[in-house]
C-alpha cells in the first residue's frame, strides 16, 4: 500500500517535472527568437527611413535597406490576401452550406489536398504553370502561390464562422423567403462578419509568413521593385538569401528584416485575435 503510494507520488513528480521543463524549453526558445531578433535587428531597424526605403548596400559596404523587398512583400501579400479571400470565402461557404453535395465534397478534398501539400510543392507547381509560360518569376507568381497556401486557412475559418451561427438565427434567415445564396451571402455572412474578417486576416498572416512558395516564383530582385509582372523579392526571401552570406552588412540587414517581419506578423496576429475575440454568437 505504502510502496504504491510512494511510487505514485514519484511518477506524479516526474510528470510535473517534464511538463515544467518542456514549458520552460518552449518559453526559452520563444524568448530566444524574440530576443535575438531584437538585439540583432533593432539597431538596423532604428536606421528608420533609410532601412525601410533604400535598396541593400553593396556586399561588404554599407548596410542599406530593404525597400524593394518590403514593397514586394506588401504587394504580394495584398494580392494573395485578396485572391485567397475571393476563392476561400466561396469555398468555405460551400463546405458549410452545401455539406454532402458532390461539389462540396470535391471542394473539401481539394482544400485538404492543398493543406496537406508541403508549401514548396505549391511553389513548384506555380513555377511550372505560371513562371515558365511567363518566362520570368514575378511578384504576381509569388502572390499566386502564397494565395494557394493561404486558401485552406481562409476556407476553414469561413466554414467555422458559418457553423458557429446558432440554429435559431439560421432558421430566421431561411424563413424570409430569399434564394439560398442570398440568405447565405447577404444575411449569414454579415451576421458573423467578424468571423469572415478573421478568416481574411488569417489568410494574409499565412501569406506573410511563408517562404517556400516564393523561392522559385518571386525571383531575386533585391535592388529595385520593378512591378508586379517582373522579378521581385520579399522580406522572407531577403532573409533567406542574405543571412547566409559572408558579408557582415548583409547579415545585419537580414536581422533587420527578421525583426520587421516579426513585427508585421505580430501586428496582424493581434488584429486577428482582437477580431476573433469579439466574435460572439
Amino acid at each position, binding site marked *: 500500500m505504502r510502496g504504491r503510494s510512494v511510487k505514485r507520488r514519484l511518477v506524479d513528480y516526474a510528470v510535473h517535472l517534464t511538463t515544467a521543463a518542456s514549458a520552460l524549453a518552449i518559453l526559452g526558445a520563444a524568448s530566444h527568437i524574440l530576443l535575438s531578433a531584437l538585439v540583432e535587428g533593432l539597431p538596423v531597424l532604428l536606421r528608420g527611413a533609410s532601412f525601410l526605403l533604400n535598396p541593400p548596400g553593396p556586399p561588404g559596404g554599407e548596410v542599406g535597406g530593404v525597400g524593394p523587398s518590403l514593397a514586394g512583400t506588401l504587394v504580394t501579400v495584398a494580392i494573395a490576401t485578396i485572391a485567397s479571400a475571393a476563392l476561400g470565402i466561396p469555398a468555405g461557404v460551400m463546405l458549410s452550406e452545401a455539406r454532402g453535395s458532390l461539389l462540396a465534397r470535391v471542394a473539401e478534398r481539394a482544400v485538404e489536398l492543398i493543406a496537406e501539400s508541403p508549401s514548396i510543392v505549391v511553389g513548384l507547381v506555380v513555377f511550372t504553370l505560371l513562371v515558365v509560360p511567363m518566362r520570368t518569376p514575378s511578384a504576381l507568381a509569388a502572390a499566386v502561390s502564397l494565395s494557394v497556401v493561404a486558401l485552406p486557412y481562409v476556407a476553414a475559418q469561413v466554414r467555422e464562422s458559418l457553423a458557429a451561427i446558432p*440554429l*435559431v*438565427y*439560421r*432558421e*430566421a*434567415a*431561411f*424563413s*424570409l*423567403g*430569399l*434564394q439560398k445564396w*442570398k440568405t447565405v451571402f*447577404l*444575411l449569414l455572412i*454579415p*451576421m458573423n*462578419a467578424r468571423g469572415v474578417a478573421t478568416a481574411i486576416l488569417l489568410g494574409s498572416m499565412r501569406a506573410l509568413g511563408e517562404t517556400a512558395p516564393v523561392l522559385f516564383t518571386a525571383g531575386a530582385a533585391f535592388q529595385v521593385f520593378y512591378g508586379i509582372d517582373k522579378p521581385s523579392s520579399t522580406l522572407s526571401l531577403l532573409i533567406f538569401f542574405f543571412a547566409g552570406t559572408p558579408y557582415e552588412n548583409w547579415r545585419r540587414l537580414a536581422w533587420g528584416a527578421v525583426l520587421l517581419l516579426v513585427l508585421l506578423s505580430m501586428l496582424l496576429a493581434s488584429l486577428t485575435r482582437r477580431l476573433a475575440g469579439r466574435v460572439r*454568437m
Partner: protein
Amino acid sequence: MREPAVRTRELSVWYGQSQALHSVSITVPRGTVYAVLGPSGCGKSTLLRAINKLVLLREGARVEGLVEVLGVDVYRDHSAEEALSRVGMVFQTPNPFPHLSIYDNVAIGPRLRGMAKGRELDKLVRWALEKAALWDEVKDRLKSPASSLSGGQQQRLCIARALATMPELLLMDEPTANLDPVNAAKIEELIKELSREVTIILVTHDAEQAKRLASTGVLLFMGRVVSEGPISSILSRSYSSIIQSLVASARRQ
C-alpha cells in the same frame, strides 16, 4: 374554391434513426387560424418546419410523403421556392437578427427580395411595425440594436419581420411560450387581428389559447394525428378514445 393553404398526406419525418412524425395527413383551410396541439415532444415544431422545409437544416433530417403549400408540392415542384417565399414564420424564442437595428430587422426581408426601397421601404417597415403593435414603442429608436428591446417587444419585432414580406401563410411556433401573461395577451390580440388577412398555423400546447384563437386544428400525440377538425371537438375527446385511435393508427402502418 381555392386550394387549401396547406395539405399534407402521409407525411413522415425522421431525425436520423428516430421518427418524429408518422404519416401525418392534415388540411389547413385558407383564412383561418389552425391550431397544432399536443404535449411537449409530440412533433408540433417538426410539423411546422416540415411545411416550410426548415427541418432540412437539421443534421440527419429526412422527409417522406406529400406537403402542399399554397397549391405547390414543396418537396418536388420547381416552384417550391416561390411558394415558400409567401410563407412567414415566428419562432418559439424571439430571435431578431443580433447584428441589425430594429429598422433593419424588419427591412431586411423586403430589401433583399427587392420588394421596396427608399421611401417605399420606410412605409412598409412602418406598416409592419404598426401591424405588430410595436410602432409606438420603437418609432423614436429605429436605429437602436434589436437586442435593446424587451423579450415581448423582440417577439413582436419578429412578427413584424415576418409580416414585412407580405406572407399569405404565417407559421407561429408557440409565439407566447417565453412571454409573461401581459405580453402573451398582446400577441394573442395581434393574432386575432392578423387572422383577418393571413392564414395562421399556430402551434400551442395550451388548449385554452387554442380555443380563444383557432377555429380548427389538429391534435398530435407521439408524432401521430389523434384527431383533426373543429377545436371544440378535438379537445372534447376522452383519454380512452385518444388511446384507441392511436392504437388503430399504429396498427394501420
